[in-house]
């Protein structure tokens, strides 16, 4: 594009959001609406990024004011613009759902923070200088933290904040290390730094990057904040956090590992370790999601599982660089990126679903919902799309990316030493995918199907304004599934442009013949509608009757419970759960005891609690030196003085 237009486009996208930040802070009744609409405009502009890229090429711009580390500049290349576009659409949908949602905070500050988040995400995705990237990335953390504060959830938000900060500092350190080897602060000029850095340093940097971004994506053991925060933060915060900011993390991680550092074939061991970590995370996320009783907690673990699959793909990409064909590397990376994009679409849809359901019923526990499909059929259709996409069922988008993952795992055979690793990888994808599907079936089944499970009736129906963004996202789920091969091709092109992996179309060409989602969808739809059409033509009488009750009238509670539903699997994987059987007195009767099972997150109980106790103990120990006695204080000075003098004398 021409430089003038680059600046114009960026200012059309970012300036309204900047105004939105300010406008939202004004104490006025209309602040929220004004700020959110400004942000909406920005998101709309953001959605145009990829079309504009196709039309005019890379957008690059340097801001007129410099930072302490030289200029701020922005470069929107192939991959960035695509991810910016999709993220912006998601952002727009979440934002427009927020406008009318009953549970969203009503003041303008929330919208103002959303504007901040949007700016930070966009800038992080297309930053071209280190400082801008690091600032934007940390601002993403900050904005999500502030957006997630609500009522008394301070501890959950704080946990997130601290863990994310740990990650942020790791990311910062890794970028600083890269910067110390590269010449200059311009990211687009960095490539294949591993040749300069040497293998140990670049492995260190890659580990820092994985763990650093992994804190946001829920890599074990940094995932402990996720369930608490997702369930206690406002819905739209969780939606944006798990989708848009995850996209940012994935994109930057991808660019840094495969572009800036560059992967070399000596990183075999590291790749295997990272693979193991992400596999474990995926299985853990899926396992834990089975025992959660709040929809949002399920979604938290599901995000963890999905993001772990993305990380798995990236680590496979590293593994394949040791002898794999460039086409294969590209394919597995495409799978990862595509899955991240898909995840952002279906997860935001699911988050909005859960949020709307909570708005309608006023309940947050799955155990007390149910029967929504009968009351709100349109809502249930849209949500079914989300659930099916998440469960990786054809012809929706989740299927396409998981297909590609499995395909590349299968195609990776014969590469150095991978005989055992790849089958295990396939098993991981299979088992975690299926477990996740179980937990989505459970989620959908217990929210939408059956009879309402509590006396409280649905207080209000979902409005068209809430449904519209969800329909948009559902259509996107479908479209991204249908046009999967096209999107994969584009992503492959983007990968070629932003990394040093030579582009190789052989696999993609082969792919087009194998994965044929339109064909699958076509046959499926034709056969479903043909048969259902036929049965409409030859209509038979249909009567409504109560569910078979074996002679006892069925009440709300006489249904299978969501805890019972996953019990068989819990029994199978019992040793892995940190479930605690608790015996307590029953309030209703003196002689009765009540058994309950509590599923505590083992990582929180066994790792974080002891760790924080240890730190606090150490801190208290140090604190005792400040004992108020001035004589001890003089003593410290004397001791330090004598020690140093003696040291200087003899060393």
């Amino acid at each position, binding site marked *: 594009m021409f430089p003038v237009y680059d600046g114009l486009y960026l200012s059309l996208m970012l300036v309204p959001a900047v105004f939105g930040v300010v406008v939202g802070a004004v104490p006025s009744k209309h602040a929220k609406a004004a700020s959110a609409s400004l942000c909406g405009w920005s998101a709309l502009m953001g959605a145009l990024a990829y079309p504009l890229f196709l039309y005019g090429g890379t957008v690059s711009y340097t801001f007129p004011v410099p930072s302490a580390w030289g200029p701020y500049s922005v470069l929107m290349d192939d991959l960035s613009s695509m991810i910016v576009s999709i993220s912006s659409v998601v952002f727009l949908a979440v934002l427009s759902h927020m406008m009318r949602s009953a549970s969203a905070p009503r003041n303008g500050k929330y919208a103002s923070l959303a504007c901040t988040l949007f700016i930070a995400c966009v800038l992080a995705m297309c930053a071209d200088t280190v400082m801008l990237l690091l600032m934007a990335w940390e601002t993403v953390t900050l904005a999500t933290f502030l957006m997630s504060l609500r009522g008394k959830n301070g501890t959950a938000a704080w946990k997130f904040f601290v863990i994310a900060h740990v990650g942020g500092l790791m990311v910062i350190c890794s970028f600083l290390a890269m910067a110390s080897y590269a010449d200059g602060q311009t990211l687009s000029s960095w490539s294949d730094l591993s040749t300069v850095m040497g293998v140990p340093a670049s492995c260190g940097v890659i580990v820092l990057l994985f763990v650093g971004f992994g804190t946001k994506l829920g890599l074990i053991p940094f995932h402990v904040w996720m369930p608490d925060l997702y369930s206690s933060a406002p819905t739209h915060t969780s939606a944006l956090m798990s989708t848009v900011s995850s996209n940012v993390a994935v994109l930057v991680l991808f660019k840094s590992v495969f572009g800036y550092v560059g992967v070399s074939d000596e990183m075999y061991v590291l790749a295997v370790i990272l693979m193991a970590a992400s596999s474990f995370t995926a299985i853990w996320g899926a396992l834990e999601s089975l025992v959660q009783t709040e929809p949002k907690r399920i979604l938290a673990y599901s995000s963890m599982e999905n993001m772990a699959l993305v990380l798995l793909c990236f680590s496979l990409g590293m593994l394949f660089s040791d002898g794999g064909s460039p086409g294969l590397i590209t394919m597995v990376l495409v799978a990862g990126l595509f899955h991240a994009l898909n995840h952002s679409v279906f997860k935001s849809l699911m988050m909005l679903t859960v949020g709307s359901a909570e708005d309608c019923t006023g309940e947050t526990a799955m155990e007390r919902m149910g029967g929504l499909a009968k009351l709100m059929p349109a809502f249930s259709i849209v949500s079914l799309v989300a659930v099916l996409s998440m469960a990786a069922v054809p012809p929706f988008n989740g299927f396409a990316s998981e297909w590609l993952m499995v395909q590349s795992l299968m195609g990776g055979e014969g590469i150095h030493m991978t005989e055992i690793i790849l089958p295990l990888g396939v098993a991981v994808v299979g088992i975690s995918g299926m477990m996740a599907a179980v937990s989505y079936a459970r989620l959908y089944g217990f929210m939408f199907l059956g009879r309402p499970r509590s006396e409280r009736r649905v207080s209000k129906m979902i409005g068209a304004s809430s449904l519209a963004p969800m329909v948009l996202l559902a259509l996107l789920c479908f479209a991204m599934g249908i046009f999967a091969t096209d999107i994969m091709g584009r992503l492959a092109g983007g990968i070629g442009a932003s990394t040093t992996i030579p582009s190789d179309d052989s696999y993609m060409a082969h792919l087009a013949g194998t994965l044929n989602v339109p064909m699958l969808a076509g046959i499926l739809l034709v056969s479903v509608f043909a048969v259902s059409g036929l049965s409409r033509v030859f209509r038979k009488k249909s009567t409504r009757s109560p569910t078979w009750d074996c002679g006892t009238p069925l009440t709300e509670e006489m249904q299978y419970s969501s805890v019972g539903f996953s019990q068989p699997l819990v029994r199978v994987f019992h040793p892995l759960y940190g479930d605690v059987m608790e015996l307590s007195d029953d309030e209703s009767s003196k002689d009765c005891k009540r058994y309950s099972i509590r599923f505590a997150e083992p990582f929180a109980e066994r790792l974080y609690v002891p760790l924080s106790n240890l730190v606090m103990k150490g801190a208290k120990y140090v*604190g*005792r030196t*400040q*004992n*108020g*006695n*001035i*004589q*001890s204080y*003089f*003593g410290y*000075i*004397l001791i330090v*003085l*004598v020690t140093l*003098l*003696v040291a*200087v*004398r003899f060393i």
Partner: protein
Amino acid sequence: MDVVISGNLIDLCVVAMLLLSMLAMTTTRIAQLLNAFAVQSLFLAFLAFVVADSTGRSELYVLGAITLAVKVAGIPWAMKNTAVRLHAGREVDSTMGIPGSLLISAALIIVAYLVTEPLMATVDTITRNCLAMSMSVILIGLFMMVTRRKAMTEAVGLLMMENGLFLGIMSISYGMPLVVEIGIFFDVLMVAVIIGIFALRISRAFDTIDTSVLRRLKE
């Protein structure tokens, strides 16, 4: 004066100062402590005169005179008065017994010797031997502050440290430029005065000048 004689005199003064520091560590009465300090300051002043005489640096006379006026007479007198007025008691409260204090003081002297030993070669003043002594006086002064509980004894420790410091200044460089020297001296005086002001305020507020009551600000 003959160089040898002045050298001997200087050594004598310095050793006396160190001995007085040790003596101060063994005192159990405030009055004794103040006396020890006054005598130590007297030796310091004398030392200044000797050095001034043997090197011909007349500003050291001024310094000696001020020391005489302030440290030998003024401060000990003021402190004695305050101690009486405040009913501060005659005892010096120490957190450590006399033998222990003396042993540690001796150890500090050894440390001072060890660390200053390489410096001896680099300084070419006639008073350079005093360096180790001055370091010892400083360290012992600091150690006195560590072991003594009363505000007044802590102040004396600080003043003794400063005596050691002035000894050091003279021993390695025959004194700093006069402006600096005078400034430093008045500063020290100001410190003494202000510490005195606050010691008064504290004694009024807490009815004691035992600093062990000042322990409420802590973690």
